[in-house]
Each structure stands twice: as structure tokens, then as C-alpha cells.
């Protein structure tokens, strides 16, 4: 599938990039951005009137002196120098501008004035030649597959994620970069990151539509503090959600608590329940913290949605099975699904294949003495159970008779089987390595029982939403 051309393409797939404020001084962000962007395929033009050469690249005194067309201009300049630079971008016919500086509308009246000036500069260009501007006050973009990157925090101290299917639109750049770093550490990849900053031109709704059409993106996550146009946002989501899940972490929940409250409806709306309801109406998942944001994305990006709500637990320890069962079935402290009774035939098979102390009832407990083969046998039996939709594997990679091949067994069933599978495992290094390995193979895998149960709950919700939608 090829992407339909968009005037935002130059932000994510530029052929030529000019870095204004590229510097020989290693402490300057212009230097860092230029150095990182060198890893991409894009042709680079450092712009700095007072430097001759930067990292072996000839420096241009101005944007206008670059002999080629420029797709993207990165402005690593102070706020005060930005309007003039935008003017030069307009004159040069640049397609996309990434404005990294802070010190605009967020700081007060002088900043607001600068923003107005930038808007005027952009508006002075005829619409078909008008550059698109990201920011200001943004970390810009990061496209792992193409190494397009304007993030100006140190890669050494703040490692970036590798490629994957999740696009991340964030109103806070640093927050998103840290969230992605944590996600990368457990094996999660991203198709793109974009920081919307002050949303002077490009806003979340446009980016949402962009990633909806992006063949490299299969799931969209967002960190938002405000909606530029809530109605349009919901309308876009309604179109996108049947194809790609959208998960939103909307922060600033207590801010609207100050809402006017003359009548009941007003005071009850105060605790941002309108946001809650509106997102659910558009079938958008709402996350309440950064961990849930990425957890749900991982589950929904690769996992298999289901409608029936009948779940089996496969475990090695009675306690883990009971904890998982509680969380699965409880409505208040869980996801309100059902442990499925297993068929008589299935139970008989389990009894004949598993160890003597194993439990053939749901939760199926293969015991800590189980080998790879016992797991494989149990999974095979569960996969052929007729009245079962999902399997939560609460695994113990530490037990004595299992090894790395166990991950292949689970991964294989995940891709080949018909049930929705989610894995959890409690433990240290060994267990975390196994979970990372599974995650990299696309299996939703989590280091706590609750997070795995929550993922199962999300897959069920998505299945139910999708089937209700198709009936409409």
C-alpha cells in the first residue's frame, strides 16, 4: 500500500533537509540535530553564516544560497530569530518547517507576538506554496525506519526506539521521548513520533489523519493536554478506529474541575467525564498513565480482538492463577470477563498429557515442573476448545524444565492459533528477557499479571466495539 501524497510528507520523508543554526559547537542543539540527521538518507545542508564546515559538510551562509530545493527546514534558532527564518523558508519554497525553539505563546505576550508574526509570514505565501510548520516549542519528528530525527536530547542518555507499527503524537515532546525509551527497553517499536508543541499550524487532527493513511502505522497513540477541535477529532477517530486502534492519554483532568457548576449537569461534567464519554463514543481507548498508553498499544497493535469474553488461564502456580482469575472476573478491580469452563474432552486430554499434580480445570496449572512439551500440549488443547476466546499465559520462565524454545512455542501459537493470546511473567532478568523476546515477535507480553489482564480486557473491548459497529 502506497501512501497518498500529503503536504505533510516533507515532515516524515524529506529528501533534502536544511538545518538552520547548525553549529560546530557540540553543546548547541543545532549541532546535535545535524549530527543525528546525518544517519538518514536525506541530503543535508547545514546553514550558518559564521561556520565554514560542520562535520565535513560545507556550511551555507543562508537558506537562499542552497542550490537545491529544500523539503524540510529545521530551525535550531532562538525564538526571536524565528520569524525572519520562516520568511526565508517561505522565499525558498521550503515544504515543511520544524521550529524547535521555545519561548513563544507559552511564555507570555512577547512570545504571542512572535507567533503572530510567524503566522503572518506563512500566510504571505500563496496556499499551494505555503510551508507547513510544526511547533514551535517542539522536539519535532522522529521516524525510526528512515532515521529522520530532530529530537535534540542526547541519544546516549536517552536512547531512541527502533521501528515498529505505533505512531506517537504528543503535546509534550520530552514526555513522549522518555515513554518511547521505556517502551524500547522492553522491545516496543514505533513508526513515527511527532511533537505538536504549540500547534501554530499542524495540529493533532491533521496528524491523526496522516497516520491513518500511513501504511507503516498500524496503531496511533496520543498524549494530549487539550483538543484543538474536539468535534473534528472525534469525527476523524470514527473513520480511523475500524482500521487502526487509537489510544489517548488526555492529561489535565483536574483543570476542568474548575468548570462552572450552576446546575447538576455542569458540576458533574467537571471531572472531565465529557472527555471520557466522547472518547468512548468514538471508540477511542483512553489511557490514564504512560504505562497504560503503551500497554494498550502493544496489545491492540498485534493482538487478536475477540467478542466472546471467555478466557482460559494457563499457569504454573496456583497463586498466580487465582490472582489472574480474580482480576479477569472482577468488575471493580478487574475487567469483568469470564473464566471459561473447559470441555470434558479437553480436560481428559489435559489429564493424560500433563504431570500428575497438574490441574486440568481452568485455571490450567501445568505446575513448575512442567517442560516445554507440557506447555505445548496444554496450549494445543486450549486452542481446540470450542467455547474459548482467549488464553492468558501466566508463565514462569524460571522453572527448571523449560528453556528459550518455550518462547517459540508461544509465539507460534500466537500467530498460528485462533485464540487471542497474552503473556505475563513475574520476575527479574530472565523473565524480562523472555518478555522482551516475545514483545519483539509481536506477542503482547507484560511483567505483571494485572497488565496482562488489562491487555486481554482491551482486546475484548475492541472486539465487542468492532462487532457492534459492523451491525449498525
Amino acid at each position, binding site marked *: 500500500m502506497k501512501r497518498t501524497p500529503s503536504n505533510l510528507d516533507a515532515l516524515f520523508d524529506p529528501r533534502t533537509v536544511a538545518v538552520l543554526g547548525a553549529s560546530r559547537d557540540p553543546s548547541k542543539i543545532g549541532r546535535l540535530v545535524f549530527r543525528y540527521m546525518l544517519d538518514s538518507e536525506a541530503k543535508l545542508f547545514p546553514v550558518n553564516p559564521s561556520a565554514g564546515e560542520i562535520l565535513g559538510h560545507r556550511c551555507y551562509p543562508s537558506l537562499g544560497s542552497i542550490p537545491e530545493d529544500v523539503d524540510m527546514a529545521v530551525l535550531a534558532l532562538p525564538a526571536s530569530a524565528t520569524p525572519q527564518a520562516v520568511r526565508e523558508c517561505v522565499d525558498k519554497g521550503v515544504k515543511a518547517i520544524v521550529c524547535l525553539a521555545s519561548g513563544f505563546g507559552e511564555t507570555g505576550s512577547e512570545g504571542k507576538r512572535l507567533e503572530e508574526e510567524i503566522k503572518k509570514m506563512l500566510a504571505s505565501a500563496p496556499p499551494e506554496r505555503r510551508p507547513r510548520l510544526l511547533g514551535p516549542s517542539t522536539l519535532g519528528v522522529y521516524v525510526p525506519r528512515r532515521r529522520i530525527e530532530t529530537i535534540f536530547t542526547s541519544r546516549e542518555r536517552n536512547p531512541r526506539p527502533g521501528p515498529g507499527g505505533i505512531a506517537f503524537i504528543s503535546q509534550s515532546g520530552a514526555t513522549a521521548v522518555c515513554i518511547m525509551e521505556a517502551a524500547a527497553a522492553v522491545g516496543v517499536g514505533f513508526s513515527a513520533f511527532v511533537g505538536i508543541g504549540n500547534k501554530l499550524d499542524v495540529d493533532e487532527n491533521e496528524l491523526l489523519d496522516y497516520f491513518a493513511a500511513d501504511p507503516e502505522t498500524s496503531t496511533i497513540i496520543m498524549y494530549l493536554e*487539550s*483538543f484543538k477541535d*474536539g*468535534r473534528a477529532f*472525534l469525527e476523524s477517530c470514527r473513520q480511523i478506529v475500524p482500521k487502526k486502534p487509537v489510544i489517548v492519554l488526555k492529561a489535565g483532568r483536574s483543570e476542568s474541575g*474548575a*468548570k*462552572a*457548576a*450552576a*446546575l*447538576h*449537569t*455542569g*458540576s*458533574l*461534567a467537571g*471531572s472531565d*467525564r*465529557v*472527555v*471520557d*464519554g*466522547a472518547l*468512548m*463514543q468514538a471508540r477511542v481507548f483512553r489511557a490514564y498513565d504512560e504505562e497504560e498508553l503503551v500497554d494498550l498499544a502493544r496489545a491492540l497493535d498485534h493482538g487478536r480482538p475477540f467478542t466472546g469474553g471467555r478466557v482460559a488461564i494457563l499457569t504454573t502456580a496456583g497463586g498466580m492463577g487465582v490472582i489472574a482469575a480474580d482480576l479477569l472476573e472482577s468488575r471493580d478491580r478487574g475487567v469483568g470477563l469470564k473464566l471459561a469452563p473447559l470441555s470434558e474432552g479437553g480436560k481428559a486430554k489435559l489429564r493424560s498429557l500433563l504431570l500428575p499434580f497438574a490441574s486440568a480445570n481452568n485455571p490450567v496449572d501445568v505446575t513448575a515442573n512442567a517442560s516445554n512439551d507440557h506447555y505445548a500440549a496444554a496450549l494445543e488443547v486450549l486452542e481446540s476448545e470450542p467455547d474459548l476466546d482467549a488464553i492468558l499465559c501466566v508463565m514462569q520462565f524460571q522453572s527448571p524444565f523449560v528453556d528459550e524454545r518455550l518462547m517459540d512455542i508461544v509465539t507460534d501459537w500466537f500467530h498460528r492459533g485462533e485464540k487471542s493470546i497474552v503473556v505475563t511473567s513475574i520476575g527479574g532478568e530472565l523473565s524480562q528477557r523472555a518478555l522482551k523476546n516475545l514483545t519483539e515477535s509481536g506477542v503482547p507480553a507484560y511483567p505483571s499479571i494485572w497488565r496482562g489482564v488489562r491487555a486481554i480486557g482491551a482486546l475484548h473491548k475492541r472486539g465487542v466495539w468492532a462487532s*457492534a459497529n459492523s451491525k*449498525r
Partner: protein
Amino acid sequence: MKAKDLLLSCIPLAEHQVKELVQSYGVPVPQRLVLEGDEGLPRRLPFPYPVVVKISDPQILHKSEVGGVRLGIKNRAQLERAVSRMRQDFPGKAILIEVQEPPGVEAIVGLIYDSAFGPSIMLGMGGILTEVYQDTTFRTVPIDESDAYEMISLLRGARLFEGFRNIRASKSALVSAMLAVSRLGEELGEHIAQMDLNPVIVYEDRCVAVDAKLLLRKRGSAEQA
């Protein structure tokens, strides 16, 4: 924004005006009679006793707190006394006489103009405990039938609509009232800061909005709700 500032920036309607409005969109309201100015009681009420007598004035939003509500009026003599007492306490204000509806499951259906999402509808468990339990859910308008049923199912009080302990409360009656409020919100939501129908009493085969409050948005107060 403080409630007082909000009130000053919005225009309230009198209860009988709100009821007329919601009724025209299909929300059932009690049979009623309005006495404007010093209009006298008709010889016969067009509906049976018991009735309720309320003051109905844009400036008096919380009527029962100022003695503006008389419940359980069973006959003509009581009615005449109640009306003349209201006239004394609230000279020149309109008086609303309504059929007193029997008790039932109480819901609240509301509208609010949300600064991010525009006109939005609320459903909650109603009555005097509305704010205590805060058992509510919101949707942007318009909603469709399946949205309305989903909203009911999301309330902690949803079981009251499922035949809990012989309580009979018609989901479909409530849904049709919600759809009426949604239509109202769709057409006029830009002008309404907030509206409460509380309670909407739900019975086995019908529902009725017993009290109704509405604040209009003043022109240019777009961001205030």
C-alpha cells in the same frame, strides 16, 4: 468560574418555559397549568389531584430552598391556600400547577456545552442523591439508540433498569426521552449552557421529567460552560 458568575453570564428560563421546550422535542412532562401574573384559578383543574404547586420564575432556580414548592395537594381548598400563599411570598411571579407523579426510579438527563466537544448529553442516576453518587455518563450529541442503551448500561445503577427486586423501569421510555434531549441539543445546543431534567422518573411503561432547569448561553460566552 464561580456559580454566581456563571449565572450572571447566562440567562435562566422559568421551569414552565423549559418544560414547554423539552415537550416540543418529545420529552414527556407532567400535565400542567400556568398562572401568569395575578391570573386566577380556573373553576376546574384539567387534571386530577394530587397536584404540585411551584413558583416558576427565571430568577428562582432552586425553588424548594426558598419555599417555592408545595407537594401533595389533594383538593381544591388546599390548592387555593397554596396558591394564595405563593402569591404572598412571590408577588407577580408565575405559578405552575402540575399533576404529582408517583415515585419511581429517578434519572437525570442533562445537556452541557463543553468547551472542547460542544453540546453534550448526560445521563445519571437522579434525585437528591445525584451529586452524592455522581453516577453519570456523557456523550456528545447527537446520540443514536445504541449510544443511549450503552449509556444506561454504564451506570452503576443500571440494574435498576434490569428488573432488580421487582422494580420496573422502562429502558426504552428513558431511551426515547434521551433521544429527544439529543435532538434538542443538536438543534439548540449552541445556545444552551446547561440543562437539567432532574428527576426524570422512570416507570414500567413510561417516564416523565418532573423538574427542569435551563441556562441559556449569552451571546459571546462561548467558552464559559
